[in-house]
């Protein structure tokens, strides 16, 4: 009498546990996170202080002529610049309306785990930014933490 009752109880409980396990069972997932870590730079007009897209923007890494990040791009209020993880500084040549300046960032780099599926990337803490002043008037660092959120880090006034 007791044995069938126990068997029934255990079977019921086992079924409940299996259901629980199935509900939480893990299946291999693909990388869903943003893996690119970029410095967000917004353009502002010097006179008005208002956000403004230059007529054209050309950007490439210093020493990487011909390998453009942006090439005569129109309507760009914000551009995104990839820092060099193998160095603690990097420079970009920025052409605004056909006039070129060089922007140099110095930063510290540290690894960051995105997820098991995506692996590691590198985050940066910007220490400073120097620039030439052919068309750029000033550069303000708004947020020195450069992450995969790709938010505004600097403001370029021209």
């Amino acid at each position, binding site marked *: 009498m007791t044995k069938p009752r126990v068997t029934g*109880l255990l079977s019921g409980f086992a079924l*409940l546990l299996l259901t629980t396990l199935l509900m939480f069972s893990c299946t291999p997932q693909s990388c869903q996170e943003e893996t690119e870590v970029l410095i967000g730079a917004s353009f502002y007009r010097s006179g008005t202080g208002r956000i403004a897209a230059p007529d054209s923007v050309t950007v490439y890494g210093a020493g990487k002529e011909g390998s453009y990040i942006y090439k005569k791009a129109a309507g760009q209020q914000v551009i995104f610049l990839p820092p060099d993880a193998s160095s603690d500084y990097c420079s970009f040549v920025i052409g605004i309306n056909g006039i070129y300046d060089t922007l140099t960032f110095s930063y510290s780099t540290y690894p960051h785990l995105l997820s098991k599926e995506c692996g590691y990337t*590198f985050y940066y803490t910007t220490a400073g930014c120097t620039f030439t002043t052919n068309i750029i008037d000033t550069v303000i660092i708004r947020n020195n933490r450069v992450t995969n959120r790709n938010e505004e880090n600097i403001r370029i006034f021209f």
Partner: protein
Amino acid sequence: MKRTFAFSFSILLQLFMFSASGADTIAFPLKIRAGADLFGPAYRIAGKNNISFEGLLIIDRDTSFSWVVSAGYQKYFFSQYNYEYSAKGLFFKAGTEINAISPLVSRGKYFAGAGLKYAVSFYTYEAPFISSENYWGEVNSSIGRISRAAHFIEVSPGIRTEVFKNIMIGWSVHLRLLIYSGTGRNLRPVYIPGYGNGTKSFSPGLSYYLIWSIPYKTEKINR
């Protein structure tokens, strides 16, 4: 879904409430149980890259309630195109277990219930290879060995049955909730020994136990 779950649970609870009649008493053996999780070694034999051993000790306090302690060792390795990760460590768990089956039915031979344990994992991890690529090219790096302690809570519903005299087998589902991984936000562990995926606050698991029971006291219960 929620209602179905609640209904199933109430049916089970009613089944467990075994009503007794008569005034006889039966002897219920309280036991000390020592066991091992067979799932870890079986997983290893099946050719998986990870090693896991866990032993547990269950001491019956009364006919339904037991104290549980367990300890284990786990070694984990993971590799994909852009990184390698390895972790190893010892983990310790302590808590309680409640048998939902009436003592009149279970008689120390059957268990269907749940355990609640607090766990600490002392582990080291490293990422000997990290690769990241962007506009400037590919950067290869590594993270050296880091030692940390993680804390988590484990809820383990499970079933066990006596197959031979004083020998039990059974399995448990583990639902683990991470309290603290021991690391900052940037270098979260991919895997914590004893817990699982360290990037998630919840980690499920499964154990298959072989347990040896030693009766140490007899308790009389009314039939």
